[in-house]
């Protein structure tokens, strides 16, 4: 809001309605040294630009080699996730599709302070960044945000709450449900749970997660997008490889079911407090 007035219509402008055009155009501007910040109206509509992101943005530094021509200035922002009534095409969380693409950085903030710091870091970063914004938090999350510029580190998870018995790993909106479930579980089971926000989904902070699970011996991964080949699969596989001898229970994945987001079923599809609480109970009682 107001950016076009403040900075001019040459720097803040409408494009034709074409996602492949938007991302391709932004890559071209980045290739000539600019810092384009492209927006896809909903993450659900990023797929027409998939070729440009996967085959071009992600690979151009690699293929250009010693010529050092790259699209590192590029940031593609897109609203993601459930909003209560978004159905099939206003609810999706496509982050795991991008975590399979070396060359892209994938970032999901959880709050206004995080959003600003991570977005400024993404713009400063010399790699292309897919920046997914949980849209249900656009108006819901309110906190004091510094007006001056600051950055938060990419590829660095944040331990939101220390604990000794279970590690709960998530990012974006589900973190709030995780906090509520943890409070109930700690009260009911007399345990302490460590809660970690991944923040950057790829390349992700493997050392922080592994050191936490090597301490607690139990791990749960929570995300909104479907469970099959989701971020949880990669995190769980990395944990079993890097913390095998410390694991006291199978790694749990609490995620969207392997289906689409039918309008009337959203609250049964998105990981809620009950399912997260139940997963904690499972690993504690295993």
């Amino acid at each position, binding site marked *: 809001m107001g950016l076009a007035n403040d900075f001019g219509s040459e720097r803040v402008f409408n494009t034709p309605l074409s996602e492949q055009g938007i991302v391709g155009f932004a890559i071209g501007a980045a290739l000539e*040294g600019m810092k384009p910040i492209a927006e896809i109206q909903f993450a659900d509509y990023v797929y027409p630009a998939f070729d440009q992101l996967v*085959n071009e943005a992600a690979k151009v530094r690699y293929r250009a080699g010693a010529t050092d021509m790259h699209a590192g200035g590029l940031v593609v922002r897109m609203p993601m996730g459930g909003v209560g009534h978004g159905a099939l095409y206003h609810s999706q969380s496509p982050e795991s599709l991008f975590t399979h693409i070396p060359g892209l950085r994938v970032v999901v903030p959880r709050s206004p302070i995080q959003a600003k710091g991570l977005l400024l870091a993404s713009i400063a970063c010399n790699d292309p960044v897919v920046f997914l914004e949980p849209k249900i938090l656009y108006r819901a999350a309110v906190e004091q945000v510094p007006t001056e510029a600051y950055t938060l580190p990419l590829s660095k998870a944040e331990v939101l709450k220390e604990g000794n018995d279970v590690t709960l790993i998530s990012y974006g909106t589900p973190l709030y449900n995780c906090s509520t479930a943890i409070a109930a579980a700690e009260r009911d089971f007399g345990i302490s749970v460590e809660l970690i926000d991944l923040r950057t989904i790829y390349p992700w902070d493997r050392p922080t997660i592994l050191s936490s699970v090597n301490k607690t011996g139990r791990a749960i991964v929570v995300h909104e997008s479907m469970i099959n080949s989701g971020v949880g699969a990669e995190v769980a596989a990395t944990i079993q490889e890097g913390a095998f001898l410390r694991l006291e229970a199978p790694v749990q994945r609490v995620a969207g079911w392997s289906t689409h987001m039918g309008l009337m079923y959203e609250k049964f599809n998105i990981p809620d407090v009950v399912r997260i609480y139940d997963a904690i109970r499972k690993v504690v009682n295993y």
Partner: protein
Amino acid sequence: MLTVSIMDLIMFDAQRQGRLSFYMVSAGEEGIAVGSAAALHPSDVIFAQYRETGVFAQRGFTLDDFMNQLFANRHDPGLGRNMPVHYGSSRLHIHTISSPLATQIPHAAGAAYALKMQALQNPNEDPRVVACYFGEGAASEGDFHAALNIAATRSCPVVFICRNNGYAISTPTLEQYRGDGIASRGLGYGIDTIRVDGNDILAVYEATREARARALEHGGRPVLIEAMSYRVSHHSTSDDSFAYRARVEVEDWKRRDNPITRLRKWMEGKGLWDEEREKAERSRIRKEILAAFARAEKEKRPALRNLWEGVYEEVTEEAEAQIGEMKRVLKEYESEYDVSDFEGGVDGLDRKK
């Protein structure tokens, strides 16, 4: 044009002998590449598809530059990562070629917008344009539509140059489109458009010169050129085009209408060229290509670490772990892997000092 056509013959044969993995010739289309590139300013930015070897040659890509890329040796700017013919040069302002068709067309629009913004910020520097090459087959991709539309609405100083050579691999234009070629579409996007005889290097030059001037007018705008030609060659070394077109059709084009022969006749008419010079020049070029060929072929491959480098600006923690794992495997199973061709061998996996 002569350099390109002689290099094409030598490299096509080299591929047939198994000395390089792949090649694509420009036969019949040398005039489009060289004529248009000559009309651009050396600092103009270029995006190419893959059949624009003449653009690189005209700009000053040396024979060693070509050969290092084709043989993917340690001097290849692409660090041995790309298939042959995927050239690129920051010195010459030509972005590295990628295989996905038409993806470079919206890049060209965005790059042209960047140049326009930079010209506004630095009024003392000469304004520049972007030139973007693609075939008539690539123009069927969605990226062509996206690019021309956004280039027009954002008033980008870009010259789109379509090489219409009649075929996209085996698909003739009758199965590519039913409108009046590619040029007829330009007007629909509000873009100044011209169709030229692609085998007439002077016509291509003149059209590109005028297109460049217009692209810079009125704060910038796109221009579309459709250069009509004929793909005399096979699509690539992996294609035998006589499976889908008659030999006689190709022979007719070679004999009747060829950009090199036509320029030669024009030069002979002006007294600038003759049989003796032709012979001497062909022999000189051939010798130089073979010398560069020999130099490049015997060079080592780039260091193995280049498999991971360049994915991100910095190699990630995950990638470092994988490099360590690869190094362990190479040492453990030393007899299974020959890494002697690669610069530094196994130690080429180590971080550069």
